[in-house]
């Protein structure tokens, strides 16, 4: 088998990528069938065969909500390293993702491999738009904490921009700006927090053009910003006013069920599948795979998940495939956009005016 490290993140064309990824994913299906009884039952109950799919579209998939309803694990409990939970809103049940050391390590390495193709190999001074103290204990590691920890491998001199009450820590921010105003730096935070607790405050305090050589990654969903009618374009324009007009800003799409293989937005505003992962768009009614330009449910594939059966997941996000191997940015692989959530994706029982 070809080692993943020898593959270029965005340099492999369709046929070669499909052949490599399909082999990885077929073998993961077999692995989880043998090691996770609930997954084996799921395949048997739906009359799905394992390990012999001839296309990515033919691979079995697990609905994302199942991770909230069941403890899906393919490792013996003695190998449990940590459990990730989705950040989820308060009333929702959270996903539980179990990791062994091998899977956790692979997540970090792959994430660094993908993101460093944007930042370059050198570690940059890093401003984290969050507060210090997200670590908690390993049994309930949040997606936010995991995200910050994962990206911190790309940076040095990690500086937290917020106080624990989410107000800006101006001493830390101004110190960072003073020190690194003329250097390439890295900024990372969750989309809403970057907007609400950082960019807005830079504007309000008239701190403009502060870090002109910055590269910013942000992730974590657009719902709250859409409620405020803030589009990706508005986000970028406003952020560039505060930081510098040439600042690179990359949103990425990822989820706690597949940490590591993130889909990063390129300079043309398209989310890209790296070699290690892929997306399939499925019709909401028939679940048939759709072609470019059509809107449907996003299925995400990743070669990472070994400790839990999450290598092929049908999400409740809606998206549209935009093309493959031909984005004007030059990156190969599928590129797409996310169009929000399936409405009312959480079924609730005899509930709740709470």
């Amino acid at each position, binding site marked *: 088998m070809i080692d993943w490290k020898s593959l270029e993140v965005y340099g492999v064309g369709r046929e070669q990528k499909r052949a490599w990824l399909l082999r990885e994913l077929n073998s993961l299906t077999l692995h989880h069938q043998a090691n996770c009884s609930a997954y084996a039952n799921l395949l048997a109950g739906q009359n799905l065969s394992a390990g012999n799919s001839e296309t990515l579209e033919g691979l079995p998939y697990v609905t994302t909500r199942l991770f909230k*309803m069941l403890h899906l694990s393919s490792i013996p409990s003695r190998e449990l390293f940590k459990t990730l939970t989705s950040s989820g809103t308060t009333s929702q049940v959270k996903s539980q993702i179990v990791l062994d050391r091998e899977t956790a390590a692979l997540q970090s390495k792959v994430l660094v491999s993908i993101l460093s193709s944007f930042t370059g190999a050198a570690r940059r001074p890093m401003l984290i738009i969050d507060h210090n103290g997200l670590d908690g204990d390993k049994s309930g590691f949040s997606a936010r904490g995991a995200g910050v920890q994962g990206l911190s491998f790309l940076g040095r001199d990690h500086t937290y921009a917020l106080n624990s009450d989410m107000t800006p820590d101006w001493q830390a921010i101004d110190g960072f700006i003073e020190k690194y105003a003329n250097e390439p730096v890295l900024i990372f935070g969750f989309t809403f927090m970057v907007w609400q607790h950082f960019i807005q405050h830079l504007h309000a305090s008239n701190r403009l053009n502060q870090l002109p050589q910055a590269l910013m990654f942000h992730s974590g969903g657009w719902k709250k910003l859409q409620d405020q009618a803030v589009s990706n374009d508005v986000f970028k324009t406003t952020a560039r006013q505060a930081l510098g007009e040439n600042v690179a800003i990359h949103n990425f799409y990822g989820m706690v069920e597949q940490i590591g293989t993130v889909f990063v937005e390129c300079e043309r505003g398209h989310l890209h599948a790296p070699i290690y992962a892929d997306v399939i768009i499925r019709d909401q009614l028939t679940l048939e795979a759709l072609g470019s330009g059509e809107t449907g449910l996003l299925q995400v594939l990743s070669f990472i998940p070994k400790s839990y059966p999450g290598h092929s997941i049908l999400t409740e996000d809606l998206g549209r495939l935009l093309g493959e191997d031909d984005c004007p940015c030059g990156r190969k692989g599928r590129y797409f956009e996310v169009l929000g959530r399936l409405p009312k994706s959480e079924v609730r029982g005899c509930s709740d005016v709470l």
Partner: protein
Amino acid sequence: MSCSIKLWAGNSEFLKLPRTVGGAFSGDRVQFLETLSKKLLSGDYSATLKALGFWLRASHIRQWQLSHTSDKKVLRTPIGRVFIVSPSNVEGLFAYSWALSYLMGNQTVVRVSENLTRDQRDLFKLMAILDEHTGGLREQSFISYDKISDWTQKLSAWCQLRMLWGSDQSIESIRQTMLPAQSQEWVFPDRYSISILHLNSANAHKVPKIAEGFARDVTTFQQRACASPKWVFWYKTDKALQQLFWQSVDCLVEGGFSKNDQLVASQYLCSMGSYEIYRGNIHVLDSPVIQGAYQHLTGVVGQSQVGVIEEIVEMLPNNLQSISIAGVTEQEQALLAMHSNVRQFVQCGEALTFNRLWDGIDLTDILSKAVRL
């Protein structure tokens, strides 16, 4: 930190109301409900609201009244102040429990979710108009408030009866709020419902009608109501009749469910060991035992085959509510009732018809005092 409340109909000054005076079934309250019923039945309202109108018809109310006034040695008087928290999955449910509380002479505060459905808006609008003409709601309030406010606390201190409809989680959460020793509480938590079908040559001709009723029970409220059947026990029934039944149901539930919700439900049941035997407008899964009785699954029905009723008894979950039946004798029902937590037997198609005997309780009894004379 009293955050503001939203008042949808009735009186906003409910905390200041003097003690209510009067008995159950007072003339003006009966009249108010009768008018409401007539307006709902004659106006441009949804089928759900028309069903409420039909339920509140004058002859129906008179039946209840008769059953309560037959004993001359007992006088029915109100409990006093009633606080009802209603669920959002069955959005019209609050109207039924409120109407009974109203009829029994109580002051009632009903909390509904602030995201009103169209039906709720229509109903509140109509009630507000009737109130303007009659003053019938001067001791009633329909409100919404934020869960982080202290209104649950205030209303729990105010009421003499707290009635909670909702998920186990929300009921447990509200129960953290202290209720005074002199007050009572009734809760209606998550429940699970099933169907037992005994089809044979004697009732085979009724299969289309039974299927139609069953389809109505599963599609109303997208199978989210406590009384919606989730599992079918085939009791001594030939496979060909089962197939005929599912085919008939499938035609009647087209577009009734979100495909994604169905897939989630199917995958959940499969992971527990069920086998998907049919995937159409409805998904049917086969397993020797009930699975997923404590999950909120929609668009799927499980099935098991049984040869004797006693086999079913052993599998019934503690949160069982309704059993919709076809071809099950009264003796068999009695056996099931004595060995399980079942609250009602209904014919297919009537599982969601509200009854004042609900969840094993006579609501008019608990919403009033029986005063011995």
